[in-house]
């Protein structure tokens, strides 16, 4: 049984311009002890799909349908049929306890008026019965674990007294506090210097080895994925367009969007020019009927505009949604 199994998750946001269909029926799974990458550009729905899992959508966001099976338990709000209080109660027991999240921006995700210690012991206070002395002891341990020197002093300080990298480590420590089974890392390195980025990724890998947690790494950086993830989901326009082992994605990309993303990564060995993907992502208020990538795809066909391609399995691990991979024998291109 997978640690996390999402089926047909659909999430939308009510805005003044209309309903934004941010996540349009995605399915994915994460096993214990593996790091799975979700890759896509801004607005592809990668972060919002995971906020949906955590139940942390902003007020105008709703999960419309789908099933979220976490550790054998159904945690989608759909089953509660509008009983928000019951759903919130369930999630309060899970969040920060068996499932936690590492956030993107270390500058804005820590409360400026509370000490590091207060913010760090909060998940422990919520979920574990510990005395004040035990809490302090655990806080020191956590800071040491994420590589913050002189933790005793740091605990007394406020976020603004720490550097960006330091704060990101604190955020990671908060996520780790209760030894969660699943850690969702939402672009944990985006706001950091390149030198610190590598260290943070190393840290997440190390901690995963130690705790055996499953990790979902949300990123737009294929370089980060290559160094950390075993499997990758590529998201575009609220849908998963390709999934596979990291090697499959790197060496046999099937979807034109995946190839486009790879062309954007600088490869120092082959002295080729960077090729950005022209155009911009689709408007998700009126999502296209066909493949969301069709307007930017240089191999687009007639059918791509009309119908969303079905998922096609290329191997046990590799699957793609693209009409190009459909066998000509099926004759669908002719329609």
């Amino acid at each position, binding site marked *: 049984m997978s640690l996390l199994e999402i089926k047909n998750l659909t999430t939308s946001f009510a805005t003044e311009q209309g309903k934004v269909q941010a996540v349009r029926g995605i399915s994915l799974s994460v096993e214990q002890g593996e790091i799975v990458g979700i890759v896509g550009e801004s607005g592809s729905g990668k972060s919002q799909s995971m906020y949906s899992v*955590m139940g*942390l959508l902003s007020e105008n966001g709703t999960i419309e349908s789908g099933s979220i099976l976490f550790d054998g338990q159904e945690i989608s709000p759909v089953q509660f049929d509008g009983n928000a209080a019951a759903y*919130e109660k369930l*999630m*309060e*027991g*899970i*969040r*920060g*306890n068996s499932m*936690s*999240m590492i*956030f993107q*921006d270390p500058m*804005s*995700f*820590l*409360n*400026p*008026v*509370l000490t590091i210690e207060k*913010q760090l012991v*909060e*998940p422990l206070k*919520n*979920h574990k019965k510990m005395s004040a002395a035990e809490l302090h002891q655990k806080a020191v341990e956590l800071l040491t674990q994420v590589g913050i020197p002189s933790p005793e002093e740091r605990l007394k300080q*406020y976020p*603004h007294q720490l550097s960006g990298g330091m704060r990101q480590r604190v*955020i990671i420590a*908060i*996520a780790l*506090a209760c030894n969660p089974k699943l850690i969702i890392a939402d672009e944990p390195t985006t706001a950091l210097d390149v030198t610190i980025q590598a260290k943070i990724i190393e840290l997440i890998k190390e901690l995963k080895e130690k705790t055996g947690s499953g990790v979902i790494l949300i990123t737009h950086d294929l370089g980060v994925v290559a160094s950390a993830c075993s499997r990758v989901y590529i998201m575009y326009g609220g849908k998963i367009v390709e999934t596979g082992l990291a090697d499959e994605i790197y060496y046999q990309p099937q979807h034109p969007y995946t190839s486009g993303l790879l062309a954007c990564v600088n490869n120092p060995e082959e002295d080729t020019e960077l090729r950005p993907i022209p155009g911009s992502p689709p408007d998700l208020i009126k999502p296209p009927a066909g493949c969301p990538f069709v307007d930017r795809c240089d191999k687009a066909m007639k059918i791509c505009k009309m119908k969303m391609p079905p998922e096609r399995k290329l191997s046990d691990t590799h699957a793609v949604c693209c009409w190009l991979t459909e066998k000509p024998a099926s004759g669908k291109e002719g329609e």
Partner: protein
Amino acid sequence: MLRYTLKRLAVGILTLAALATITFFLMKIIPGSPFGGELAQLSPEVREMLYAQYNLDKSIPEQFLIYLQNAVTGDFGDSMTRKGTAVTTIIARCLPATMKLGLVAFIIAITVGVTLGIVAAFTKRKWVENLVMFVATIGISVPSFLYAMLLMIVFGVILGWLPIIGLKTPLHYIMPAFSLALYPISMITRLVRSSMKEVMKQDYIVLARSKGTPMIKVILGHALKNCLIPVVTYAGPLLAFLITGSFVIESLFSIPGIGSEFVNSVTNRDYTMIMALTILFGSFIIIVNILTDLLVAFIDPRVKLEKKAS
């Protein structure tokens, strides 16, 4: 912290000196004299004696120097309209009632304002929010004497629940305190609501929720402290204004307070009284501002009171 406070106090004393100087000369420029009105019939000899007694026969700069000399030793002179009574005696008699009433009004304003603001920010029922904001808008736009009189008519006359005159029992405080507090309640409600809505959008609220912290604890433990920073900066000067009294409310409820003293002293050209009250109110405002800054620094660790020596 201590050094900062002392420094601010020193600056405060300079400010007070400037305030006293400006007030003194402005006051003398206004036409009229403390011995106008029914005293205008006094014979020239008596008038000269009175002028001599209060040093009014000397030049204005001379008068000012004499006033300063006396003030430094704590002698603020006698009231010019109530002969033989030192202004400090009058202040000591009137200030306690005003301060007590002001403090009660202040406590009401803060507790009711913050509570209503939080309710308006978080209620799921849109009509509750609209109702609170409607009342708050009325509280800001309607002058205090109007609702003070309305309260008096409803609770004092028609229902007869509350006494109208004076400040004898705790019951006496209810109507004047609420009349004083309604405006600040409305201001604080609006301030807390908008500030709370802003704070709840911040990323650190999402992180707090991601720890499994229940919403009520997120609000009280994470949001409230951040949202109180603008409230504190408003509440400081508010306290100074409330404990110095309101002429309107004190006259309406016949409270022998300092607020009516101040207005009367100006209309009567009671020079010594004007000076003493100006200096008193000035020092309240200065002290309360220092306290506000200290409190803000206490709530928000990012605020640095002392600039690092460069």
